[in-house]
């Protein structure tokens, strides 16, 4: 029994050479179903894909469901405390063995004929096993285990057997992940819940958006109007000292608010007016001045978006996860995070800030979704039209880390992602 488990499908023969240029990408990339089919295989099944955060499976028996491209997987924690990523597919005749977002269980029991699997995927129970005498051995049919590695709490899985180690893949992005995780305010990062929504458009429209500062004052005008004067100034960053840096492997970082890059810096700064009530609440809970300042500085999140190609971003105060549904449909998860063991007031304020902007009823997300839907609709116009990603191309610099960098509202991050995309699609 040495079959290949990686679900290779018949991959259409598409050649996208010429459709991705340094300064533009062709509109068919948003709407050609054969290109989408090839992307699932050549991109999503062929690299590290984010499947969860360790805090989502805190205990023995905790699980969450996720997807690698279109393939459903389970992330589970076994009795020894070890994390597993398993294809969510019974080895008998393919039924999913686990449904729902997250939960706790003792085992995964297939609903169809009752095969039972342990938390580590081992096949433990087969009803009426005698008909399998001499036909099948239980130890040969565990749930298919998917290779996974973690970095700073983020769990990535890959279907590519010889994929380079996760830390090599993340490369220059690791520094920014470390900075991002400081927003627990001295407590480990913990997932608090997520907003999920779909929009009728291609997944790459969302990939571009996480590194698109240019749209902020236009699309999010109504959000900015809902802020107090001090906060709206913080979000007025297009003329500031922000930048976008190409981190390699398709990853990029867009720094919008440079003074909020390192949340452990500048802890002596006075408490901004908008967080005075929050600080008072912490003081009432008996927190000392140093801790209050650390929590106040962390509560609003980091001043940057880190785009990790292809499916996750560490976006200011949350994780933004994309899941391709079809060539014209994408699901987005906005994952709220807080501090594990942090004061209730801290996590409550973080969730209220998240609700204010994010999600299908937030003051920001619906306008993003509207813009993306309009991109998809418009992209059908014209016989041979292109999507421009050349903004800031003539004003590139070299960053302190030796990377290509452009202005905060340049399209440097999109070019980084498409360069990696082209390399994978034509490999």
């Amino acid at each position, binding site marked *: 029994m040495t079959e290949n488990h990686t679900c290779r499908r018949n991959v259409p023969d598409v050649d996208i050479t010429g459709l991705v240029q340094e300064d533009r990408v062709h509109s068919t990339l948003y709407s050609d179903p054969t290109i989408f089919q090839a992307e699932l295989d050549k991109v999503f099944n062929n690299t590290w894909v984010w499947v969860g955060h360790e805090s989502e499976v805190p205990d023995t028996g905790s699980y969450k469901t996720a997807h690698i491209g279109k393939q459903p997987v389970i992330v589970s924690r076994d009795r020894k405390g070890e994390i597993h990523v398993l294809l969510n597919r019974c080895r008998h005749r393919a039924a999913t063995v686990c449904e*729902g*977002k997250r939960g706790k269980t003792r085992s995964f029991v297939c609903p169809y004929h009752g095969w039972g699997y342990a938390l580590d995927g081992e096949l433990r129970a087969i009803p009426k096993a005698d008909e399998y005498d001499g036909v099948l051995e239980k130890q040969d049919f565990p749930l298919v285990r998917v290779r996974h590695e973690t970095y700073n709490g983020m769990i990535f899985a890959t279907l590519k057997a010889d994929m380079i180690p996760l830390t090599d893949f993340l490369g220059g992005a690791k520094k920014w992940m470390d900075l991002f995780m400081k927003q627990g305010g001295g407590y480990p990062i913990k997932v*608090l*819940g*997520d*907003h*999920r*929504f*779909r*929009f009728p458009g291609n997944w790459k429209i969302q990939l571009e958006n996480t590194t698109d500062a240019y749209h902020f004052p236009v*699309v999010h*005008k*109504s*959000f900015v*109007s*809902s802020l107090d004067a001090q906060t709206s100034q913080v979000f007025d960053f297009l003329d500031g000292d922000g930048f976008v840096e190409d981190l390699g492997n398709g990853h990029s970082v867009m720094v919008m608010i440079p003074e909020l890059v390192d949340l452990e810096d500048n802890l002596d700064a006075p408490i901004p007016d908008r967080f005075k009530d929050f600080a008072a609440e912490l003081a009432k809970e008996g927190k000392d001045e140093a801790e209050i300042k650390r929590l106040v500085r962390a509560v609003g999140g980091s001043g940057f978006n880190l785009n990790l190609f292809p499916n996750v971003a560490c976006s200011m105060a949350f994780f933004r996860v994309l899941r391709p549904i079809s060539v014209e449909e994408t*699901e987005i998860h906005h994952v*709220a995070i807080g501090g594990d063991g942090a004061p*209730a007031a801290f*996590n*409550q304020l973080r*969730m*209220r800030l*998240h*609700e*204010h902007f994010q*999600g*299908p*009823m937030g*003051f920001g*997300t*619906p*306008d993003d*979704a*509207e*813009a993306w*839907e309009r991109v998809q*609709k418009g992209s059908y116009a014209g016989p041979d039209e292109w999507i421009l990603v050349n903004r800031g191309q003539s004003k590139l610099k070299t960053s302190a880390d030796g990377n290509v960098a452009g202005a905060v509202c340049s399209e440097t991050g999109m070019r980084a992602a498409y360069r990696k995309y082209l390399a994978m699609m034509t490999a």
Partner: protein
Amino acid sequence: MNATLNAVTAFINTEADMLDFQDYQAWLDLWDEDGSYVVPIDTETEDYANSLNFAYDNATMRRLRVNRLISGEAVSTQTTPKTVRAPSRFRILSDADGVVTVRCAQLLSENRHGNLRTYPSDVTYKLRREGEGFRMVEKVVRLLNADHHLSSIGYIL
């Protein structure tokens, strides 16, 4: 009991009409100053403060939400100009200390970019008696698909 059921039904129908016809100022005036408007993700919880919700508005957030809808600045609010909602299946869950708790079904349809979509939900109201009428102390909208993906919602449920 019948008189109370008739009274809360009339109140909720009027509230629905205000939202469908975008009479937002009148809608804001229905609220108790300390009232909460909640659209939870977890339809089992009542601990909204310690949960992530789709919406969890106090008076300030309600005003900001209305401002956003009427400002003309939010592109998503312009492509869903109209909703039609039908509250029904009213049942009084409790009536004590001047507060009536009533649950109903709400079928809401939107027309966005020409696509007709429906959001069914269970809605629970806590209504404080005031004079001849009521004030909203709490409105909790539990969407049938709250635990799954939604589409963007550019109006008040």
